[in-house]
């Protein structure tokens, strides 16, 4: 399969076994670990020569095993991932790392480790609030992770190895941003579906190999003529863990998804790890303060306020959401589609604010709530009606 290059390799990887390369590496003696969500500092794994791969679901695989253990009134993405774990999809790995990303992940972790145990199991209790005492706590959590990984691999994580890993992952994110730039063109030279698939392939390879793959994809995209006609609506997609084919559905309906704010998307690659400060501090910042996810709570500085005063509502919204306005502007989106996974509480709590904020910025919004396994017909009517509304 490694003979294949660029987007062909991406397609083949996802169509056959996404984790084939990981299994190969495992056979060659490399330590391989699965991780859940965007909050795991992958740099620390890479620094110890561990190959990390992202734990995701499979939107084409019917969830059967998970039904025996997990409720339906929870995140359907996690149910799908858990289902795969119960079907031994991740058994080959040396370990899995979870984080306190949300209530659903915390609870799923409890049963994942019980029913689908791995050799190495770790959980990072990521704080929720951007403030100094939370950062101090998070540093302790990162140090504990370091110790646990070092003990497992019998290796030492030096400052030098960590810096090297940071450089590799920053390069990785830079390449993803470069690819994303092609979506600024009209028509975009790379589709939302291609972008999603490329990211998923990269999250299933060690970072050096992911970087080579990205370079191939970029070269390929650069050399080709745009695929879509120029008059398509340009959509900003907002949502949680969207490794499913929702993007593809929007594009099948005749629009181009040109920018996104989803976990398998900009949230993964928008921000680098700061090169100028101590590596652990830099990771701390990158994985708490700079993380874009509604479960991270940030607000204007309380301490600057006069007694009895609170910050302006607009300042609060700008601090939390102005990047969305920038995305819409820079990528010239003429509409936004919010697709929330039902029971994803942190996103659901933010939804009215996000909707209003985008509409305030003159970006019409289609708000959809659904499952990880997208019901095609029902959503198609809504998406098409929305595109017809943008036509008019």
């Amino acid at each position, binding site marked *: 399969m490694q003979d294949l290059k660029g987007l062909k390799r991406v397609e083949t990887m996802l169509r056959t076994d996404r984790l084939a390369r990981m299994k190969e590496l495992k056979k060659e003696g490399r330590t391989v670990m699965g991780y859940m969500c965007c909050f795991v500092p992958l740099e620390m794994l890479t620094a110890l020569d561990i190959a990390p791969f992202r734990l995701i679901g499979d939107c084409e695989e019917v969830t059967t095993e998970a039904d025996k253990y997990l409720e339906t009134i929870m995140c359907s993405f996690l149910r799908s991932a858990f289902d795969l774990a119960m079907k031994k999809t991740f058994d080959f790995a040396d370990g899995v790392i979870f984080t306190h990303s949300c209530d659903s992940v915390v609870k799923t972790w409890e049963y994942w480790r019980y029913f689908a145990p791995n050799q190495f199991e770790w959980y990072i*209790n990521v704080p929720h609030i951007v403030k100094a005492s939370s950062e101090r706590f998070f540093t302790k959590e990162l140090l504990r992770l370091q110790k646990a990984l070092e003990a497992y691999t019998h290796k030492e994580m030096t400052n030098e190895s960590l810096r090297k890993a940071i450089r590799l992952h920053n390069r990785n994110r830079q390449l993803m941003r470069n690819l994303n730039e092609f979506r600024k063109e009209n028509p975009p030279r790379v589709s939302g579906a291609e972008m999603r698939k490329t990211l998923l392939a990269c999250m299933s390879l060690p970072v050096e190999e992911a970087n080579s793959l990205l370079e191939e994809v970029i070269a390929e995209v650069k050399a080709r003529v745009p695929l879509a006609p120029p008059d398509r609506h340009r959509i900003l997609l907002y949502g949680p863990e969207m490794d499913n084919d929702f993007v593809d559905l929007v594009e099948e309906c005749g629009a181009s998804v040109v920018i996104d704010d989803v976990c398998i998307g900009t949230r993964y690659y928008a921000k680098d790890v700061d090169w100028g400060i101590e590596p652990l501090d830099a990771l701390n910042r990158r994985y708490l303060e700079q993380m874009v996810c509604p479960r991270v709570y940030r607000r204007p500085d309380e301490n600057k306020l006069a007694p009895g005063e*609170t910050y302006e509502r607009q300042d609060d919204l700008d601090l939390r959401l102005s990047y969305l306005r920038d995305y819409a502007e820079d990528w010239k989106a003429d509409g936004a589609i919010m697709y929330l996974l039902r029971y994803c509480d942190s996103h659901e709590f933010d939804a009215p604010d996000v909707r209003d904020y985008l509409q305030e910025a003159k970006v019409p919004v289609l708000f959809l709530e659904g499952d990880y396994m997208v019901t095609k017909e029902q959503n198609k009517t809504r998406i098409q009606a929305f595109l017809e509304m943008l036509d008019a």
Partner: protein
Amino acid sequence: MAEEKKVVKVKTTADKSTETSKKAHLLVRKYYHEAAQALQEGRPVAWLMASTLCEEMCRAMDVTPIYTENFGGTAAAMQGGIMLCEACEADGFSMGICGYARVGLGHSKLRQELGRVDPSWPNGGMADPDLIIGCSAGCEPRYKWYQAQRRYQQVPFLCPEILDTYPVGMDPDDLEDYYVELLVAEMYETKALMEKHLGKKMDMDKVAEYAEQSERTRNLYWKCDEIRRAVPGPMPVEDMLSCMPFGFFYTAFKESEDFFQELYDELAARVKNGVGVIPEEKLRILWGWGLPPWHYLRIFNYLESKGAVAVMQECYTNFCADDCSQYSDPFERIARYQIRCRNHGHKEANARHLGVDVSRMISYVEDYKCDGVIQHALVSCRQRTIGQIASAEIMKKYSTIPVMSFQSDLVDERTASQAEINQRLDAFLEVAAVEKERRQKAGLL
């Protein structure tokens, strides 16, 4: 247009067994009225979440607390929850988010639209706050709800980072100190912000006094649960749900301690005289995790009508009888007490390779001699719902008693049918009775 039709209502609240618990709602109402009065007299009111660790600080600062989660349950029990939920949902909030949050957000939205709190709302509604204090403990709604609250209400919002629950499988000895360090730092920040916003210093001696008061209340609350191991059970779950606010929210009030003392004395007398909830207690039920269906508390009376008594619950429990008086900093004392209480049984759970909730249920079944476990899957609560099916699976390894799960919600009666729930309870109680008979015949009881 047709004339207005009169709405017919059916009773959904529970009839209580113990005399003390029958008085609980009066004390809750008194706390609400105190808040309304404080507002009128210009004294500060704060809206709080559970686990913010602010109860003692509020008392010391003469701030009247309103626990907004408690209001959610109260509103549902008084059949006023849906009206508030719908106001919230009309603004685009999903029906899936925390029912308490929807009640609270709906309350504030209507408050903003009307320009006042309507006295016809449950308990007269919540008085306007001078401060709102959320936190990150336990579940996401504790901070996301108050963040969303800013759509309707612009008051200072304090949000301490309270991480007070150890991750499953981690050794508590490695964790206590730095968890406590975080909590103490957060409490100092909350103190500074409260002082700034309220314009006066916090008297730390008073905080220390209230910390002691809280411990006394909570320890008594725990003692009341402990004595419920007796056969027949002296007090059913519905009674404890009425008393819970004093051991869970309003802990720094002397009245709360007195309340539990009275309750304890009543329970002790009942146990001594062998008085149970119903004349013949055929089955003892553990109310497993899942918060109660506040919109249908009569479910417990329904069980009793079938000879089954819910003798203990896994939610709203307090464990810590640890003496934390050796910690001279009152904040540290509060933090240590909280951490030890929240993580009670963690080591035992680790030994079983389980999470603390399931592990506790396994112990309760044994300690409270239960014949069945009923779990309530809540459509709007991830934290107390995910894992119920898995727990039932795990519990099979420890006991032969049946475990059931039914789905509805803490607030939202639109999610379930009482008739359907009752049908399922009937079938479950039959299974539990057969299993109990089997164990009796086999000499296991």
